[in-house]
């Protein structure tokens, strides 16, 4: 809108400035020099056609090549960077996988060794324990036997002693079996 005002102002200024002289000359050359129209259009066509030809055949292909070439190069570089990144990631994954496998293997070996040792220890302990138990049993049996023998001797001695004491006291010799039964009774009660 401001532009229209300016134009109006300018035209008014022209009217003011040129006054009758301008009117005498016939106003705007754009409207009065009609005999130059054909020439203006002709040269417009010629020059614009030349410009269009040069632009479309020479300049724009070149410019397009440069601009597209740069875009391709940038895309290419980005693509390569992406590919390298993917590769690095792959290597990283492979490394981690290898590390994991190694760790697993180490664990397995550790476990196997530990199991082996455990089994060996258990076996040895077992042998020792069995030997120990065998010895214990044998010794216990010996002790028992000795004890039984001792106990048997004691009872026999007690029976003889009881017979002898009874002989001395009341001059009656009790039968050995009775004396024995009495001794057994007493020993039983003690026990």
């Amino acid at each position, binding site marked *: 809108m401001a*532009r229209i005002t*300016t*134009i109006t*102002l*300018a*035209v008014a*200024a*022209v009217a003011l*400035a*040129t*006054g009758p*002289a*301008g009117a005498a*000359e016939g*106003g*705007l*050359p*754009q*409207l009065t*020099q009609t*005999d*130059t*129209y*054909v*020439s*203006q*259009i*002709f*040269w*417009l066509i010629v*020059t*614009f056609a*030349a*410009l*269009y030809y*040069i*632009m*479309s055949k*020479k*300049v*724009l292909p*070149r*410019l*397009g*090549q*440069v*601009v597209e*070439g*740069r875009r391709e*190069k940038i895309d290419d570089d980005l693509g390569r960077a992406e590919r390298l990144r993917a590769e690095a990631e792959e290597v990283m994954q492979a490394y981690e996988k290898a590390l994991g496998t190694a760790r697993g293997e180490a664990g397995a070996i550790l476990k196997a060794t530990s199991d082996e040792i455990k089994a060996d220890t258990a076996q040895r302990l077992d042998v020792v324990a069995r030997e120990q138990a065998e010895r214990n049993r044998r010794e216990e049996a010996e002790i028992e036997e000795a004890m039984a023998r001792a106990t048997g001797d004691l009872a026999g001695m007690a029976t003889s002693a009881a017979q002898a004491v009874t002989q001395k006291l009341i001059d009656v010799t009790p039968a050995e079996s009775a004396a024995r039964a009495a001794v057994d009774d007493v020993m039983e009660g003690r026990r």
Partner: protein
Amino acid sequence: MAQGAQDGSFPVDPLHQFEIQRLVTVNVGGLDLSFTNSALWMVIAVAAITGFMMMATRGRSLVPGRLQSCAEILYEMIAGMVRQNVGSEGRVYFPFIFSLFLFVLFGNLLGMIPISFTFTSHLVVTFFMAMVIFLAVTVIGFICHGAGYLRLFFPHGAPLWTAVILVPIEIISYLSRPISLSMRLFANMMAGHILLKVFAGFTLLMGIAGVVPLAALVGITALEFLVAVLQAYIFTILTCVYLHDAIHLH
């Protein structure tokens, strides 16, 4: 130019700059195809664009220099304009749009050189360009859509009875496109140049007080550079918009 200064009238003729002068008279079969100052500046514009572009793209380097950056910015700008306003089908018209923008831009900017000639300040030039664009767009529209292109004159989904009002309005607005397109460029360029001349005249006329219009002149000159670029841009982008309508129908 300053012939009227003595008798107290205006010292410069602001319209003199628009006069067409025949430099080489050419007459082909009764047609006056004289090489005029207008034609000269068209040739200079094309030569300047070609020289600039050829120099800018000579290196074709991956990392652009200053000139090449300028050329690439222009390329990307116009390519973006076509892509956004016309779409991917617009690629075919890209060289035309690119040439059009540069032609109008250089025409406008070269006109800012003192004593040069601004061929875009002539209605016949801008109107011819606008008319060619208008006719081409119409032809492209009919090629793309056949008779269906006429749907452009009736907005999709509007009640049928509104056609009585809408169709004439749409037809008028469509037909006025070449007029508004050419008028906008022509009037802007002409008015700016007249304004510059008028202020220059005031500067001469007012003696020592002439510094005031001189200061204004500096500001207007800057403004005219802006207008020169802006009008070239508007002319081109409107062409893109018309192309979009022809290819996509609204």
